[in-house]
């Protein structure tokens, strides 16, 4: 028994306990510290227990990687968190694939003689190496596409081309064929190894480009899960329990989040990946047929409605993040609270571009987390709410989800803002939401539009409120 294995177990225990502490905001920070100590133990153990290491290379690698990661982590704006997580996912996936690749290259000669490698039969070894390289590389390229879409380098619209699904099917089939061929003792391992890397990279791209901006919460969660699966697969390659356990934890975490996001949109994972919702041609017709008349108010008129209200529920959406309006809304809310009004925040599971995106933004603006309510908690609250203030959210408050079977968002759980006495909707323009459908809520009798950039509108609103 090697003692180093005990330390990997200790690291895994710290990861598990750390994640467990994430179940409450009070203990979460300590949990993260705990997990990072676990990582430190795992790294030191590896450095001490392995033979024949090149410390110069390792230190150089850690310094370079640490600097890049550290600078990113310190500088990034909270609104850009989805991009950041996307790109980190990519690096994690790539690292796993590279490790598996390095091990594979070293063992090519052995593979052809049929001896056991790292204690694994050649068949099992080949399968886990290919799995690790496939998932890791796909995570890498997929994450970069997701990053590009979130950062605006690539269009947030779904990018589709004829026969896309057929291409994907061909790629997948080729992967399976190559794997089967190699497992059955095929030759020319090196070239097929490159073919696998190439195919995986391509699939990461073709599977991510057709997915639109608002479906990003699903994609990021899924890529998160993949980065865990890749790490676990690499753990099998090296027969390292530390990697296997950690990878399984991350894989499970991403899977749970993916599931929550899909439920939040009432769509299956298959539909998100292959459905390409948000395509213009899909949504025309019905939406344009119904002309909606809206009432547009100035911030001054809106201020008077707020003045008469006792209970206000704020509904933030991606528009709030784009406008960086989190501090402005906190100032408005504080003013309203100082007048004895109750202010709550309604957070839809898929609001923003990643799970929990809105919560982080509002936390940054010092809004206490007790005021942030999720869908099930907040919906009964709209019944006796005087003003629901919708900030840059659209599809998550569209009543069509309840009754319009032809709508792409039909069946999606929505925030019942229309139940409140008045709904004040802030949008920059009358453009449709991501799903490309007109929102009938805007035309309701109790709905009022206040157009403008969320941040500027809120600042003006605060001024007007103070002048009342």
């Amino acid at each position, binding site marked *: 028994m090697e003692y180093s294995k005990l330390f990997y177990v200790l690291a895994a225990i710290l990861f*598990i306990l750390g*994640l467990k502490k*994430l*179940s409450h*905001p*009070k203990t979460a*920070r300590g*949990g993260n510290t705990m997990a990072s100590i676990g*990582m430190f133990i*795992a*790294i030191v153990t*590896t450095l001490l227990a392995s033979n024949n290491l090149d410390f110069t*290379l*390792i230190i150089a*690698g850690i310094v*370079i*990687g*640490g600097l890049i*990661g*550290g600078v*990113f982590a310190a500088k990034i704006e909270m609104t850009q968190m989805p991009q*950041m997580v996307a790109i*980190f*996912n990519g*690096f*994690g996936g*790539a*690292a796993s694939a*590279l490790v598996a690749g*390095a091990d594979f*290259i*070293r063992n090519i000669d052995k593979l052809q003689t049929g001896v056991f490698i790292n*204690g694994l039969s050649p068949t099992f070894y080949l399968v886990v190496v290919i799995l690790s390289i496939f998932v890791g590389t796909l995570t890498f390229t997929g994450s970069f596409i997701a990053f590009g879409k979130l950062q605006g380098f690539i269009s947030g619209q779904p990018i589709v081309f004829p026969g896309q699904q057929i291409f994907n099917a061909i790629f997948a089939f080729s992967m399976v064929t190559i794997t089967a061929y190699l497992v059955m003792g095929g030759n020319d391992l090196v070239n097929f190894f490159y073919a696998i890397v190439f195919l995986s990279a391509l699939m990461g791209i073709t599977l991510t480009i057709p997915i639109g901006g608002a479906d990003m919460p699903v994609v990021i969660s899924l890529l*998160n899960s993949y*980065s865990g699966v890749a*790490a*676990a697969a690499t753990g*099998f390659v090296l027969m390292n*329990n530390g*990697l*296997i356990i*950690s*990878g*399984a*934890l991350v894989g499970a*975490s*991403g*899977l*749970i*989040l993916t599931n*929550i996001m899909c439920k939040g949109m009432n769509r299956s994972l298959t539909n998100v990946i292959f459905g390409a919702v948000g395509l213009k041609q899909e949504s025309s017709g019905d939406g344009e047929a119904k002309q909606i008349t809206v009432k547009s108010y100035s911030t001054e008129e809106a201020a008077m409605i707020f003045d008469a209200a006792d209970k206000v529920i704020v509904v933030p959406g991606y528009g709030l993040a784009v406008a960086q309006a989190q501090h402005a809304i906190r100032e408005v809310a504080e003013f309203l609270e100082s007048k004895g009004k109750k202010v709550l925040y309604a957070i839809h*599971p898929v609001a923003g571009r990643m*799970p*929990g995106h809105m*919560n*982080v933004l509002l*936390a940054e603006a*010092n809004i206490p987390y007790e005021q*942030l309510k*999720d869908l099930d908690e907040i919906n009964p609250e709209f019944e006796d709410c005087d003003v629901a203030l919708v900030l840059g959210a659209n599809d998550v408050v569209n009543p069509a989800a309840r009754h319009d079977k032809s709508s792409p968002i039909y069946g999606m759980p929505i925030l019942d803002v229309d139940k409140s006495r008045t709904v004040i909707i802030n949008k920059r323009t009358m453009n449709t939401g991501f799903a490309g459908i007109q929102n009938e809520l805007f035309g309701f009798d109790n709905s009022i539009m206040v157009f403008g950039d969320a941040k500027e509108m809120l600042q003006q609103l605060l001024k007007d409120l103070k002048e009342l």
Partner: protein
Amino acid sequence: MDINILTVFILAIFVGIEIISKVPPTLHTPLMSGSNAISGIAIVGAIIATRLDGGMGTWLGLIAVIFATVNVIGGFMVTDRMLKMFKRK
């Protein structure tokens, strides 16, 4: 041997599902970035992969060390930065 390690893997998935289901939606972003940092555990494999044999494996190992460190350091740091902001009234 293959079975033992599969057992570990499957049990870990169950543990993961059990603890992560309890994370509230408010903390989903830190959960993602934190678990992301944990997937940087590939750094363990990356360090082993840099062992000197002058081949391509060593260089792949070096790139892997860089990538995994970005993931680990960046992931834990940014998660801490976020969690610091979550305050009560």
